[in-house]
């Protein structure tokens, strides 16, 4: 046990650095994913379809969901610079690839949740003279957010764990730090278990936050 704490103390600065990178990538990628995914989901929902544009959005979400995240990461890091004419650093590439990949799933969640809101809510807003944008902002999105929250939690959870893949383009994130430590210390069991527990802790934190938000968004107790 003493050995374990000694190992932990020695490795702590590196672990904190890796964790910090993981959390930064996670934060920026989830912001990108939520904003982009919500916009795409709104545009492809039944009541807000815009001819051609909505079909294009659906095609984009299909592509984003259909290509493995690892391949998307490689495309963003190695192919995109050729197309746009300047290099992306691994951090930016990781955020973009993770955000884009996750936004495809978020779009589907948002689309489904908006479609699940009864038509009479749109009609009530129309009868009161609300424009589409106002109906969306005041009536539909608040209800949508309550429906979609558990699925958002799921998606964010998955996004957090996907950050471990970005080590393949040279990002020194939590998993890569663990691998480096194992090479240095030759102690895979305590190191990998510690890394797993750290992921579990942050996943738990996300779950608790989501549950609290869900409770706050209850219309009344029990509903």
């Amino acid at each position, binding site marked *: 046990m003493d050995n374990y704490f000694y190992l932990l103390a020695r490795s702590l600065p590196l672990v904190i650095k890796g964790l910090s990178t993981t959390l930064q990538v996670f934060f920026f990628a989830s912001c990108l994913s939520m904003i982009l995914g919500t916009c795409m989901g709104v545009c492809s929902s039944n009541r807000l379809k815009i001819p051609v544009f909505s079909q294009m959005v659906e095609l984009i979400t299909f592509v984003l969901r259909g290509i493995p995240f690892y391949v998307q990461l490689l495309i963003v890091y190695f192919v995109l610079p050729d197309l746009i004419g300047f290099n992306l650093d691994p951090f930016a590439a990781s955020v973009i690839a993770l955000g884009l990949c996750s936004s495809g799933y978020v779009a589907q969640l948002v689309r489904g949740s908006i479609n699940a809101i*009864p038509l*009479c*809510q749109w*009609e*009530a807003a*129309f*009868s*009161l*003279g*609300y*424009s589409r944008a*106002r109906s969306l902002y*005041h*009536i539909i999105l*608040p*209800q949508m957010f*309550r429906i979609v929250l558990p699925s958002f939690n799921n998606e964010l959870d998955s996004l957090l764990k996907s950050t471990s893949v970005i080590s393949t383009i040279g990002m020194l994130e939590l998993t890569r730090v663990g691998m480096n430590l194992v090479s240095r210390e030759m102690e895979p069991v305590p190191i990998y278990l510690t890394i797993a527990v750290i992921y579990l802790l942050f996943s738990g934190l996300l779950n608790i936050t989501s549950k609290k938000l869900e409770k706050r968004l209850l*219309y*009344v107790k029990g*509903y």
Partner: protein
Amino acid sequence: MLKVTNLTQCKDKQGKAFPILSDISIEFLPGRISLLLGKSGSGKTSLLRCLAQLEKNYEGSIHYKEEDLKEMPAIKRCQRIGFVSQSYALFPHMSCIENCSQPITIHLGISKKQAREQASELLISLGMEKYLLSKPQQLSGGQQQRVAIARALVLSPSFLLLDEPTSALDPENTDLFIGIIKKLQQQGTGFIISSQDMSFAKKILDRVFFLENGQVMEHHSMIENGVDSLVQEKKQLAGTRLGEFLYGHAML
């Protein structure tokens, strides 16, 4: 006055155009209660939805005074016509007072505080003083209906359209509802109500349009015809489809 001229509406069913409303021409008068009666599928709700502009795929025209409702801007339309659907469709994430005050804030550009005052006045006048801060899920069907009526009335429309308003009400709440609409009628609001509830219809007969297969088969105006008792009413309606619908063959 709300004037419907040659209103025809068809819907697609398995690739064929199926007529829902056929060549309807009627006038609704302000300050009066107009009942649309008829069996299920007779076109009552479709007519109401066209009047509320929830469906615009109709031929013919609907004019409020001289203005075509189809061309009317949304803000103007909702100050002429209010609509309460069968399910009331209150916004579940808002309290009763927010449900009613938000349209005022948005359309009339007054402060939230003033809008809440106006909305609470209206809710209190409908007997909802204890439930201003309640969410719709905490209310009974009758209470939800009163909030929905208040919400439709906050922009002071000339006509209020109600789709099957008594379908979820018990007899006590139905009587309460009748009291409310008669009170609002006296204040000048015109009502257009679709219903197949015969006991409700008998209590509120004023101007009646009897629909069948998307057509107005009969039109009766009780006040103009001097009907002020049940015996007179039965006498006048004897032999009509409306009489048969309301009182059955027993009266004939």
